[in-house]
C-alpha cells in the first residue's frame, strides 16, 4: 500500500459558483468521503479556507519573515486535499476521478515518499 495525496486545484471560478452549486459540490464531496471510509482507504481529508486567509513564513537567508497572502500569485490555489491508501497508481487514479467529479475541480495525485511513510508507521 502506498499513501497518495489527492490535492484540489481550485480555480477562481470556484468562488463564483451559485450557492446551490456549492451546496451540491459539498454534498457530493461528503458522500465521496463516506465512500472512501467504507472502502477502508481513507486517511485524511480537508477543505481549506479561501486563499486570502493564507500567511507565509518566508525564509530570507537566515531570517524569517511573515508575509500576508499566498506563497505565489497564481490563478489556481490549493483548495483542499485527501490522503488515501491505494495499491497502485491506477487504483489512486480511479479514486481521483471520483474526487474530481464530486468537488468539481481538477485533482492532482502524488505519492508520499516511501521513507516518510515508513517513519510514520
Amino acid at each position, binding site marked *: 500500500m*502506498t499513501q497518495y495525496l489527492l490535492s484540489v486545484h481550485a480555480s477562481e471560478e470556484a468562488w463564483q459558483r451559485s450557492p446551490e452549486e456549492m451546496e451540491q459540490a459539498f454534498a457530493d464531496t461528503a458522500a465521496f468521503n463516506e465512500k472512501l471510509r467504507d472502502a477502508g482507504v481513507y486517511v485524511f481529508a480537508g477543505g481549506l479556507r479561501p486563499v486570502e486567509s493564507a500567511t507565509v513564513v518566508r525564509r530570507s537567508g537566515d531570517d524569517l519573515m511573515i508575509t500576508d497572502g499566498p506563497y505565489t500569485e497564481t490563478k489556481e490555489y490549493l483548495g483542499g486535499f485527501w490522503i488515501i491508501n491505494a*495499491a*497502485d*497508481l*491506477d487504483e*489512486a*487514479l480511479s479514486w481521483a476521478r471520483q474526487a474530481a467529479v464530486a468537488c468539481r475541480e481538477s485533482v492532482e*495525485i*502524488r*505519492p508520499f515518499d516511501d521513507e516518510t511513510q515508513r517513519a510514520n508507521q
Partner: protein
Amino acid sequence: MTAGAEAVFRREYGRCVAALIRFLGDIDVAEEAVQEAFTVALARWPTDGEPPNPGAWIVTTARNRAIDRLRRESVRHDRHTEAHHLYGTRATGPELIEEEPVPDDRLRLIFTCCHPALNRPAQVALTLRLLGGLETPEIARAFLVPEATVAQRIVRAKRKIKDTRIPYRVPAEAELPDRLGSVLSVVYLVFNEGYAATSGQLIRVDLCTEAIRLARLLAQLMPDEPEVQGLLALLVLLHARRAARVAPDGSLIRLADQDRRLWDADLVREGQAIVAACVRRGRPGPYQLQAAVNAVHSVAQTAEDTDWRAILTLYDQLHALAPNPVVALNRAVALAEVEGPAAGLAAIEDLDLGAYHLFHATRANLLRRLGRTAEARAAYAKASALTANPTEQAFLDAQRASLAED
C-alpha cells in the same frame, strides 16, 4: 555485436525484459540482467553455438544472474524484498490473471510504457527502449533530439513508474478502450515519424518497420480488438507504397503519380485481408476506417480508377465517429474528386488549420484546378514555409514554380 546476436537482441529484447520485469519487479534491474545475459551469450554462442530457443536461454540466464546478484546484495541492503514490493504479489494474483486472457508479459509492458500518467514523448521513448530494444542514441537520432533529452525522458519515466507505482498489468475491461487508445497512438506516432522522413536520412532507424513490428505484436496479443487490427492494416497499406513514394533524386511522389507496380504486393494483400475481416466484424473505428480508405486506394490499378465515392463514404463515417479538422480536410479531397474542386474548396475554407502545411497544400491544389493561379501560388508558398521536411518543401516549391509558367 555479431549480426546474428544483434538480430536476436532486437527480436528478443522486449520479450526478455518484459518477463524479467514481472519476475524482478523492477525495470532497471530487469534491463541490467538482460544486458548481462546478452554479454554472456556473445562470449559463449560463437563457440557453443546458438541455443535452439535463444529468447528462453536469455531469460533463464538473466534470471539466474539476477537472483545471484540480489542474494549478494540482499545481505547488505535487503534489496531483494524491496524489489519484490515494487509491484507486489498482486500482479500475479489469481483475480488478475482472470482479467488477462493473454498471458504475454510484453502486453503488460506496453500498457505500462504507454500509461496516461506519462507524457507522450516519454511513452514513445520508453516503448522503443523496452519493447523495441533500441538504444538511447538510436531513439535520439530517429526523433532528431539530443541524446541527453532522450536519456532524461527514459530515466524520468522509469522513476515515475516506480515512485507512483504505475502497475505492471493489462488494464481491466472497463479501462481498456481508453488505455488502448494511448498505446495505439504511440505506435502510430512512431510510424508517422518514420513515414514523414522521406528525405533519405539513412541514419534514421527504420521507425516504420519498428512500428509495424509493434502493431503486429499487439494484433497477435489482442486478436479481438478491431482497432488494433485496423492500425496494423493501416500501417502495412501505407508502408506498401514506400518504394513508390520517393523518386531516385529523393523527391516526394504523390499517391496519384506513383508507379503502382512498385507497391509491395504482399503488404497490400495483407492489409486488404485485415480490412475485409474488420468489415465482416462490423465494429468500425478510426484506424479501421483509415485503413479502409487506403485499401480502396490499393485496389485501383491507376489513380483514375480510384473509387472516390467509396472513399468519401468512409470519410463521412470517420467524420461522424471522430470529428476533427484533419479528417474534414481529407474528406474535402475526396469530395473534390466526386463533385469537383469548387465543392472541395467550399468544404475546407472554414477549417481551423492555418498552421498545418497540408491544409495550404490542399487548398493550393484546389485553387490551381479552379484556375485561381495567384491564390494557388500564395497557398503553396505558405505550405512550404510551414513544413520542416526538406523533401516536402522541394515538392511544394516545384508545384509553385510550375504555376509561374502557366
